[in-house]
C-alpha cells in the first residue's frame, strides 16, 4: 500500500510532520503524489534533536532517501511536542513576577478553589484527596496595584457601562512593584487586572511603565498582559493562561527553535511549525505560544477534518487509542469543536482548545481485580514496556489481546519485537480468571468486552452530551490500538459509517501534516441585544463587530507578515460567542462571512445562534424572549500551506489477491474459539472486501474483523467497517 511505495527522485516537495509523544516520536513523510511513509524513534525529552533526527531518518530510509535528501525537498515541517506540558509538570520554568488588581494578591494560591481538576468522580468525592496544584509563581512575587475598571452588569446598561474607570491606575504602585519584582530576580513580569478583557487600557498603561523601568535598568525582561494573552472573561482562568505563557512558553520556544536548528542543519530552509490547541499551525515566533500546549492530540483531529474534506463527511467522531489513553473528539459540520476552557495538569486555562474527552485506558493500561472482585483497567500504563508479554510486571490490555490470539506475538512492529504469549496467558489466569472463578479465555474475553463497553459509553456520552445523534456521524478509529478494538467500540451504536486507515498508528502525525497555518483572535465584549431593540441599537452593535473584525484582520495581517506570510493570501473565518441574556456560559457561533453592516446582519447572527443552540439542547431550553448577549468576537486567519493529498486508486475486484493471505489463526472471540483469516495490509488493494472473521496485520497495527462483519477498502485506501 502507499506506505511502502518508493519516492521518485526530483518529483517536487515533501511534507514532514512529527508527533513527539511520551513514548515514541512518530514521523510522517508525505510524498508529492500524496502517499506517505511512517518513521519511529524513542522519544528523548532531554534531547529532542536526536529523537527528531532518528525518526526522520527512519521514515526517509524506508523510501530510499537520506535525512538530508528529505530536508532539502521539504515544503513544510511540522513538529508537535510535549515540551510545554513537561515544563509545567516539572516546574522548571521561568521565575515569574505578577502585578494584579489590588486586593487580588492571593489569586494564585486560591485558584478559585479548583483543587480537584483531573480527578475522577470517585476521587473528587473523597475530599481528602483535593489539593492545590503547585503554584507557578511564588506568592511573595504577586503584588497588588490600585486600579479598577467595571465590566457592566448582566441586566444591561441600567448601571455604569462596561469599561467604566472606577479607580484610575496608580502609576506609582506600578513603578514600586516593578522594581521590587526585578530586585527579586523575576525573569518575566505578567499583568492581570479585573475586566481587562473588556478594556485593556490599565494593563497596557502598566506594561508601558514597567517596560520603561526595565529599559532604564538595561534589562531584557518581557512584560506580558493578560488581555494580550487571553482576552476573555473569568480572572482565574485568564490568570492561568498568563502564567503558562510567562512560565513556560519562552523556554519551550527555545527548545523548539533547537529542533528547528536540527532541521536546518539537515538542509531545511523553511520555518518549523507547531500546532495550536485549537487546531492551526504556527511557527516558533508566534506570540501566544502557550496555546500549543496539547499539540499532539490536536493532530489527530486535524487529520480527521482533512479526511472529512476529502471524503465529504460533515460529522466525524474520532477515537484514538494509543498506549496510555483513549481520546474521543468531534468534527461537526467539517469543523473541529472548540471548548472555551481547558483543564491541563491541574490548571484551568482560558484557552480555546479542541474538545476532547479522555479516559486513562490504552493498550498498555494495567488490568486488575480488587478485593471486592471488581474489574479495573488503568490508569497505570506500561508505556513502551507494552505488557507482561514483553517487559512489564503487570497484566495489560495488550497482554489479553495476545493471549486470546488477536495480536500475533511474532509480528509486533513487523516482527522486530517478539512477545511472549504464554506469560500473558499465565498472568491473565492468575490475575483475573482465578480470582473471579472463570475460565482463562472467558475471563480475557469478558475483560475485553468491559473495556470495549466503557469506551463505547465514552463515545456515546461524548456525542449525547452535546445533543447529537450518532446516525449523523462517521466513526473514525486510529492510534496503534484503535483498529484492534474498533469492532467492540462500535458495537451497538449505529453510525453513518465506521472507518479506519492503514496508517492508524501514525495518524496524529499525519494530521499535523494536514494542519492549516492559522491564527485565532478573540476579543471579549459585553454587547446586549434585548428583544425589541431599536434598529439604531442593532446598527451600533453591528458597527462594533464590524470594526473589531477589521482590527483583527489587520492584526493578523501584521503578525503573519512578520512570520513570513504574504497577507494577500490570507483568508478569514468569523464567529461570535453568544448567549441568552442572563446565561453565564456563551456558545461558539460560526458565521458564514464577515459582513456586519446593519440590523439585518445582527438578525442573521441571532438566527445562527438559535440554530446552533437547537442542535445542543431540547426545545424547552431555548429562551429567546430573554434577549441575547455577545461576550466574544473572534476571527481565524488562515494562510496557504502545502497539504498532503490522498491518492485515488483504481478499484480492483472485491476479492483480495492470494498474495495478501497470510494464514489462518485461532482466536478466542467473545464466547469461543474461531478461526480467523489473516491478511497482510500492504498487499490489499483498493476495491477489496475482507470478510470476517479476519485479521488484517500491519507492522504498526492490527485490524480485527469479527464474524458477519466485513471491511471494504475504498479508492483512497480507507477501510470501511460494516
Amino acid at each position, binding site marked *: 500500500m502507499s506506505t511502502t511505495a518508493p519516492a521518485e527522485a526530483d518529483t517536487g516537495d515533501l511534507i514532514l510532520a512529527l508527533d513527539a509523544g511520551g513514548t515514541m516520536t512518530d514521523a510522517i513523510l508525505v510524498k508529492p503524489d500524496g502517499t506517505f511513509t511512517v518513521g519511529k524513534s524513542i522519544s528523548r525529552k532531554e534531547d529532542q534533536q536526536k529523537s527528531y533526527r532518528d525518526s526522520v531518518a527512519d521514515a526517509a530510509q524506508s523510501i530510499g532517501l537520506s535525512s538530508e535528501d528529505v530536508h532539502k525537498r521539504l515544503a513544510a515541517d511540522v513538529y508537535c511536542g510535549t515540551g510545554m506540558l513537561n515544563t509545567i509538570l516539572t516546574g522548571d520554568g521561568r521565575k515569574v513576577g505578577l502585578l494584579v488588581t489590588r*486586593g487580588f494578591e492571593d489569586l494564585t494560591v486560591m485558584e*478559585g478553589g479548583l483543587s480537584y481538576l483531573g480527578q475522577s*468522580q470517585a476521587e473528587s468525592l473523597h475530599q*481528602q484527596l483535593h489539593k492545590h496544584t503547585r503554584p507557578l509563581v511564588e506568592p511573595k512575587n504577586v503584588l497588588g496595584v*490600585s486600579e479598577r475598571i467595571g465590566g*457592566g452588569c448582566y441586566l444591561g446598561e441600567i448601571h455604569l457601562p462596561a469599561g467604566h474607570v*472606577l479607580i484610575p491606575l496608580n502609576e*506609582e504602585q506600578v513603578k514600586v512593584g516593578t522594581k521590587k519584582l526585578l530586585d527579586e530576580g523575576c525573569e518575566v513580569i505578567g499583568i492581570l487586572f479585573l475586566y481587562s478583557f473588556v478594556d485593556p487600557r490599565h494593563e497596557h498603561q502598566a506594561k508601558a511603565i514597567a517596560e520603561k523601568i526595565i529599559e532604564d535598568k538595561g534589562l531584557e525582561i518581557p512584560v506580558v498582559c493578560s488581555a494580550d494573552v487571553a482576552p476573555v472573561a473569568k480572572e482565574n482562568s485568564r490568570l492561568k493562561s498568563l502564567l503558562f505563557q510567562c512560565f513556560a512558553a519562552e523556554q519551550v520556544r527555545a527548545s523548539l527553535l533547537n529542533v528547528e536548528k536540527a532541521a536546518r542543519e539537515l538542509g531545511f530552509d523553511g520555518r518549523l511549525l507547531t500546532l495550536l490547541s485549537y487546531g492551526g499551525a504556527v511557527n516558533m515566533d508566534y506570540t501566544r505560544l502557550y496555546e500549543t500546549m496539547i499539540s499532539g492530540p490536536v493532530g489527530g483531529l486535524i487529520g480527521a477534518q482533512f479526511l472529512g474534506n476529502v471524503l465529504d463527511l460533515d460529522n466525524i467522531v474520532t477515537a484514538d487509542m494509543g498506549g496510555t489513553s483513549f481520546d474521543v473528539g468531534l468534527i461537526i459540520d467539517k469543523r473541529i469543536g472548540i471548548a472555551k476552557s481547558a483543564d491541563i495538569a491541574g490548571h484551568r486555562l482560558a484557552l480555546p482548545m479542541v474538545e476532547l474527552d479522555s479516559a486513562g485506558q490504552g493498550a498498555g493500561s494495567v488490568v486488575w481485580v480488587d478485593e471486592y472482585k471488581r474489574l479495573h483497567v488503568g490508569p497505570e500504563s506500561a508505556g513502551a514496556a507494552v505488557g507482561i508479554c514483553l517487559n512489564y510486571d503487570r497484566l495489560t490490555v495488550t497482554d489479553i489481546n495476545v493471549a486470546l490470539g488477536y495480536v500475533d506475538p511474532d509480528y509486533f512492529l513487523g516482527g522486530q519485537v517478539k512477545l511472549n504469549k504464554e506469560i500473558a496467558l499465565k498472568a491473565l489466569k492468575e490475575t483475573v480468571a482465578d480470582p473471579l472463578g472463570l475460565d482463562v479465555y472467558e475471563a480475557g474475553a469478558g475483560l475485553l468486552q468491559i473495556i470495549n463497553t466503557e469506551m463505547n459509553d465514552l463515545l*456515546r456520552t461524548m456525542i449525547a452530551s452535546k445533543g447529537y445523534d450518532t446516525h449523523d456521524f462517521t466513526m473514525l478509529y486510529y492510534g496503534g490500538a484503535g483498529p484492534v478494538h474498533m469492532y467492540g467500540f462500535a458495537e451497538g451504536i449505529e453510525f453513518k459509517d465506521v472507518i479506519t486507515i492503514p496508517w492508524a498508528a501514525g495518524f496524529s502525525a499525519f494530521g499535523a501534516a494536514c494542519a492549516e497555518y492559522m491564527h485565532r483572535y478573540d476579543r471579549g465584549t459585553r454587547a446586549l441585544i434585548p428583544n425589541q431593540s431599536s434598529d439604531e441599537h442593532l446598527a451600533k452593535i453591528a458597527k462594533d463587530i464590524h470594526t473589531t473584525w477589521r482590527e483583527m484582520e489587520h492584526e493578523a495581517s501584521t503578525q503573519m507578515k512578520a512570520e513570513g506570510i504574504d497577507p494577500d493570501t490570507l483568508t478569514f473565518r468569523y464567529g461570535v460567542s453568544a448567549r441568552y441574556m*442572563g446565561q453565564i456560559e456563551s456558545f461558539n457561533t460560526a458565521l458564514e462571512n464577515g459582513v456586519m453592516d446593519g440590523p439585518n446582519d445582527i438578525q442573521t447572527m441571532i438566527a445562527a445562534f438559535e440554530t446552533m443552540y437547537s442542535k445542543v439542547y431540547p426545545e424547552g431550553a431555548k429562551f429567546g424572549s430573554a434577549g441575547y448577549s455577545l461576550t466574544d468576537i473572534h476571527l481565524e486567519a488562515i494562510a496557504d500551506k502545502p497539504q498532503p493529498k490522498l491518492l485515488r486508486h483504481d478499484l480492483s475486484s472485491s476479492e483480495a489477491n492470494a498474495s495478501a493471505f497470510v494464514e489462518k489463526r485461532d482466536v478466542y472471540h467473545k464466547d469461543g474459539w474461531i478461526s480467523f483469516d489473516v491478511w497482510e495490509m500492504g498487499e490489499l488493494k483498493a476495491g477489496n472486501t475482507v470478510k470476517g472473521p479476519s485479521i488484517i496485520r500491519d507492522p504498526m497495527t492490527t485490524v480485527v474483523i469479527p464474524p458477519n462483519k466485513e471491511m471494504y477498502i475504498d479508492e483512497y485506501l480507507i477501510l470501511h467497517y460494516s
Partner: protein
Amino acid sequence: MATIEKEVLNQPNLKAITAPTLAEAVEKRDRLTESTGNYYGVKELSLKKADPIRYERFYSKLHSAVLAARESARYVAASPGSREMGECLWGVTTAEGDTLALSLGFLSHTAIFPTAVRYMAANNYDVNDGIEDGDVYGVSDGLTGGVPHPGDFYSFVPIVIEGEVVAWAVGINHLMENGAPVAGSWATFSVDTFMDGLVVPPMRTGRKLQQESWWKAIWERRTRAATMNILDDKMRLAGCAMIHEATHKLIDEFGIDYYKTAIREVIEESRRRVLDNMKSTMVPGTYTGAAFRMAQYKGLQTIWSHADKNTLIHIRASVEPNENGLKIDTEGTSRWGHHAYNATPGASDAAVFLGMINSFSHNTKVTAGIELAVQRHYPKGSILNPDNEFTSNANPWAQTVTLNNIGFGAVSRAMFSFGYLEEAFCVDGNWGAWQGQGTAEDGTAYGFTNFEWLGGSSRGAWCFKDGEPLVWAAWSQMATIGDAEEFESTVPPMFYLGRKLLPGYFGAGKYRGGPGESAVHWCVEPGQHIGITRPNGGLSSTTSVALGMNGAYPGPSSFMISARGTNLDEVNAKGLAPRDAREMLEMTDSGLLKVDDLKVWKTDCPELSMEHNDLFVDAAGSSGGWGDPLDRDPMAVIEDLDSGTCPDYDFVNEMHGVVASKNTLGNWVLDTAATEVKRIALRQGRLDESVDVKDWWTKEREIVQNAAFFPEVGLMYNESLSFDKFRDEFTSFWNLPHEFNVLEG
C-alpha cells in the same frame, strides 16, 4: 374494585389499573427491605453473579447518562453557582425515589429524593390525575419534598413504561433569588413558612418534557430574578430530558425485567460495600458532639411579637457504629421556633449525608445504599423534625451544617483512632453569603445572591500537617468559588475591592487550620435603592463544631462588617482601599479610613441600605487546628509571620510562645532560647490557672442549679431538657433531680 376500573376507563389521564400504584410500590419496597434487612429483599446479587460484565455494563450506561446530563445541561444556567460551582446535581432513581446514580455536584441531596416521591405516592398523584411519561414536577417544600430550603429547587421527570412509573430523572440547583420578603436565597427573619418565598409542594408544571406556559409567569411574578430562575429551570429540565431518553434506551436494550432486578441489586450491592467501609474504619463506641447557633430576633420582629426573641440553638448528636451501619441520634437538640432555621427530616438528611458519602461511598456506586446504612433519629418536635407543619425552613443550613460536622468529625476521629492518619483532619463547614434586592436609577428592579464563600472553604488541620486554604466544600465535591468577574456582573452597584485570604483567620494549633477568605464590596452609585442582608451561614459567633482537635483552637466564625458613610474617595486616591476584613478594621482604627457608621455583625444582619462609597466586608471559610499550639514548630510560626499568613507577632508570641525579632531586611528571626523559656512559662501559667475537677464541678453545678444563665442559655436548656435522653445525661452529670428544669429568664 369494579367501580374504580370504570372510573379509570372514563378518565384517560388515570393510570392503567394493571400496573402497581406508586403507593403499592413504596409499600412493597418497605416491606421487603424491613422484613429481610436487605434492600428490596435482595439476598443474592444474582445478575452480578451470573454475568458480572453485563451487570457492570448496565450500570456504566446508567451512570454515564447522569454524568452527561450535568456536563451538558449546566451550560444553560444563569447562576454562577450552577455553571461554575458544584451547586447543581442530577440523578436517576427507582420508582420509589431511591437513588441509582448521581452526577457530580452536591451529592447529599440524594437522601431527599424519596421524600417527594413518597408524598406523591401517599397522595395518589398517579391515580388522580395520573403521572405520564415525560411529565415535569417542581418541588421546593421542605415538609412534602424534603428540600433543605426553598432556595434549592428540584425538578422530577417520571419515566413511565406501560403505565408504570419505573424511574425518575431528578435535577436540582440553588436559586439566586426565591421571592421571600427578605430577598435572596435564604429568607432570614422568616417567622413561618408563609415568609419563605416560593414554596412549592410536588406539583406538575409541564408535560412531554416541556414546561407549561403558566410556569414562566410564576418565576416572573413570584421571584425577583426571573431571568436567572427561568434559565436555571430550563437547565434542570434539559438534564432530566437527557436522563429520561437515556433510561428509556437502556430499558429497551436490557429489557424491563433485567432493569427491575438490576436496580435492586445495584442498591443492595452498594449498601453492603458501605457497611464494609464503616466496619473497617470506625472504632466501636459513641461519638458525641454539640454545636450552637444564635438567632438574634429580639427587637427586630415587633410586628410578629411571638417571634420577637433571641434563641440559642443547640444541635446535639451522637454517632454510634452498629451491625447495620451507623446510628445518628440527635435527641437533645433544641425545639423548633418562630425563626428561619428550622429543618425538616429531609433537610437534616441533606446535612448528615455530606460527610457520610465522602467517607463511605466514594469507592462504590453512589446510590441509596448509603441511606440504608445510616439510621437517623430526629426527635419529633425538635428543630430537625418540627411538630408544626407551618414552621419556616428558610435557612436550616445555618444550623444543620453543624450536624454534618458532628458526623463527619466523628468519622475523622474514628479514622484517627484506627490509624488512618492521612484521612483524619479537623472538619468544619464555615460558609458565608450575601444577598438582597435593588432598584436601578431607571426603575429596573432586581434580586441577587453572591454565594462565593459557599463555594469553598479552607480545610482544618490534619494530624500531621497544616490545613490548606480554599480546598474543599463540606457540602459539595466540587469546591469552586467562581470568578469575581462573574459575580460582580450579577449585582449592578457593588464592586470588588478585594477577594483574598484573611491573615490570621484560622484555628491555631500544633498544626493550624487553613486560612479563611474575605472580600470587600464597594457600593458605587446605588440607583434608587440597594439593600443587602447576610444569612451568615458561618454559624454566628458561637462555637460551631470544629473545636480544634487534640488541644487546638477552633476555626473563628464567619462575620461581616458594614461601613457606611466613608471617605473612600480619599483612600482610593492614595491607592490604599481596604482589601479584607482585617485591613478594614486596622484602617478605621488608624483613622486612615473614616466611617460614620461601622458595625461588625456576628449574627444575621437585617437589611442594610447601602449608599455611594459604603462598604460591605465579609469573611468566612476558616477552619480549626490540631494539637497543642505550644508544640508548633517555631520555624513554622516564623514562616507564617514572614508570609503574612499570621502577621501579628504579639498574638503568636502568646499563642505559640515563640520569641522572634525582625532583622535589617525585615525578616523575622527566631530566638530559640527565649522561645524555650517563654513556652515553659506559658505551660506553668496553665498549671497555675487550673483547678481541681471536683472544685470546678462543684462551682459550675451551683450555676446550673441556680439557673444563673443568660436568658437565651436558660431557654436552650429548657428545650433540650424536654427530651428524655438529654435530661438523663444532664441531670445525671450534674447530680440534679430528674425533674430539674431551668427557669426561663
